[in-house]
């Protein structure tokens, strides 16, 4: 397990933390770079970057559309890593992608560089090359929505070796044995999915959030809540309910897709959300729901 977690430190030191998500390459990698810098200025404490995969089964229509735009713009793993390499922001960066992308990177389908490829044997799908490249570019962690804890051992080992965090998602339906199994492998933070279903901005904060946070109380890792967060007021409620951070994705993608001035709007949105989270932290002790 990663004992010196850059991600955990970022959340604890900036408590309550704002974690933002953007799909890399939507609508182009150059624009993503400007957007990430805007979020960083606006107060994001951690930034998730989606590496687009053509079959994103955890995503709602908003992020699916973003992924399609990014794929159409020609976003490949290698160009993604070049973007990360290029970024100079204060917030640690995480990559969010599907397991297939990680395995395919190792199978030689997307060679890292000619000289390395020639000397290394290819032993079928293996997460190690992806993690190695991620570590090289300075990524602090990985989230894989379609990788269950039961199948995670090879990726966990590769992340441990390179000092990366492997973040797991906890759903409203996760409890008992499964919760233990996940939390024994999780590092960085626990990604608490606020409701059933796929990602997407919603109008209210789910009561499932309170239940999930209560179930996670005994585990000593920061808890961040995502799925459906779109406003500063949501962020306040979530932090007031006991979360260490809030995760926002679809609401930012909406800005990317619709705004005439996305850079300014993203910075302002990050500022609003961070402000909301801070109000939640300063509120009196939460009442038990």
């Amino acid at each position, binding site marked *: 397990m990663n004992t010196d977690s850059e991600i955990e430190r970022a959340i604890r030191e900036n408590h309550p933390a704002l974690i933002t998500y953007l799909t890399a390459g939507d609508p182009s990698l150059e624009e993503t770079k400007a957007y990430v810098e805007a979020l960083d200025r606006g107060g994001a404490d951690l930034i998730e970057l989606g590496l687009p995969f053509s*079959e994103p*089964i*955890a995503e*709602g*229509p908003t992020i*699916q559309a973003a992924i*399609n735009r990014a794929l159409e713009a020609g976003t490949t793993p290698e160009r993604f890593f070049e973007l990360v390499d290029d970024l100079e922001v204060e917030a640690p960066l995480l990559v969010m992608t*599907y*397991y*297939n992308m990680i*395995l*395919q990177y190792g*199978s030689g*389908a997307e060679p890292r560089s000619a000289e390395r490829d020639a000397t290394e044997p290819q032993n*079928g*799908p293996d997460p190690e090359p992806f993690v190695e490249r991620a570590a090289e570019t300075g990524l602090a962690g990985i989230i894989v*929505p*379609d*990788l*269950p804890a*039961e*199948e995670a051992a090879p990726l966990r080992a590769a992340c441990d070796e390179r000092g990366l965090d492997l973040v*797991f*998602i*906890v*759903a*409203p*339906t*996760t*409890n008992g044995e*499964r919760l233990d199994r*996940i939390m024994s492998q999780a590092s960085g933070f626990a990604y608490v*999915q606020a409701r*059933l*279903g*796929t990602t997407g901005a919603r109008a209210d904060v789910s009561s499932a959030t309170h239940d999930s946070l209560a179930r996670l109380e005994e585990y000593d890792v920061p808890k961040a809540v995502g799925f459906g967060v779109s406003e500063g007021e949501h962020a306040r409620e979530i932090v007031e309910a006991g979360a260490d951070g809030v995760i926002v994705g679809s609401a930012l993608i909406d800005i990317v897709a619709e705004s005439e001035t996305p850079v300014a709007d993203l910075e302002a949105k990050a500022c609003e959300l961070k402000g909301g989270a801070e109000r939640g932290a300063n509120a009196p002790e939460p009442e038990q729901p």
Partner: protein
Amino acid sequence: MSQGDFEGYGGRHVPEPLLEPLEQLADAYDDVSATDEFQTELRDLLEEFAGRPTPIYYARNLSERYGVDIYLKREDLLHGGAHKINNVLGQGLLAKKAGRERLIAETGAGQHGVATAMVGALLDLETEIYMGKKDVERQEMNVFRMRLMGADVNEVTRGDAGLADAVDAALEDFAENVEDTHYLVGSVVGPDPFPRMVRDFQSVIGEEAREQMKAKTGELPDAAVACVGGGSNAIGLFHAFRDDDVAFYGAEGGGEGTDSKRHAAPLSSGDDEVLHGMKTRVIDEDVEVHSVSAGLDYPGVGPEHAMFDAVGRCEYTGITDDEALAAFRELSETEGIIPALESSHGVARALQLADDGEHDTILVNLSGRGDKDMETAAATFDL
């Protein structure tokens, strides 16, 4: 240890919210399906509602032409016109016993949607079918059938408005409504327990055929042949023979050729990937998924087939569109049986084997009838 492991293929590669429901489904399946009550009720439905057992037919004219004995397992004679009913009855009954109130399914050409609508009506379960808008327009008759039997047909307009988008929409529905909804998967694909559950429900095909071949010929066939899209009819045929000295042949949708950029034959030409919740073989990224038959038009394949291929238990071959159409016509003309275009791939492979002369007795799964393919046939053969 991984769930539903087929020598490293399979597993449950799905988002966290779906894992608990899948575990519950697996538990329910293990508990309920083994009971006498479930088995008796399913057997009665298979006999009285679906029309089992189906016969095996000695294809006398083809056999004479090729000089080997060719037998057809007549799944085309089932209610609904294909083997799909075996699976929907099993899963529908399981959903009912597990207290689910609602069935959802995705469908491409509409065959699986129609089968799901049948079982929804039969078992009085609310049924919603996700279908790409493009498919809704192309397969109007099947949409009418589904609606007539009381199913809601949800037109999916996002993305390319095709099968993959219908899968996305159905998964979203399932993720939000797992508590009262059963996602009725149509083939031996997806996360565990679907591949093994669908296999078990389809295994009735091979179990019957094995007994029928013994009764009719006194021995087992030398070879068993079936088409493979997701691969449920093939697994259903093969499973009862897996420990026998019977050679297995799978006929994939070879499209314009497995070395072309348009086919649906991941075992003939593809790589290990993770897709739709399973680790399996998938066609290469630069290949457009295509087959003349909608039922084989799928980029992946059931994980158990990937395992059979890896361990050498079954030989998989891409049958091109043209080869399948030729077999479609040949069976129609020689035997007076119009096969589904999917099944025609299996027939084509069997005729290749007959030409090779390596096997004396060949059993082919005629998984469905060709009524639905008459427009393609009319256009191709200028009827």
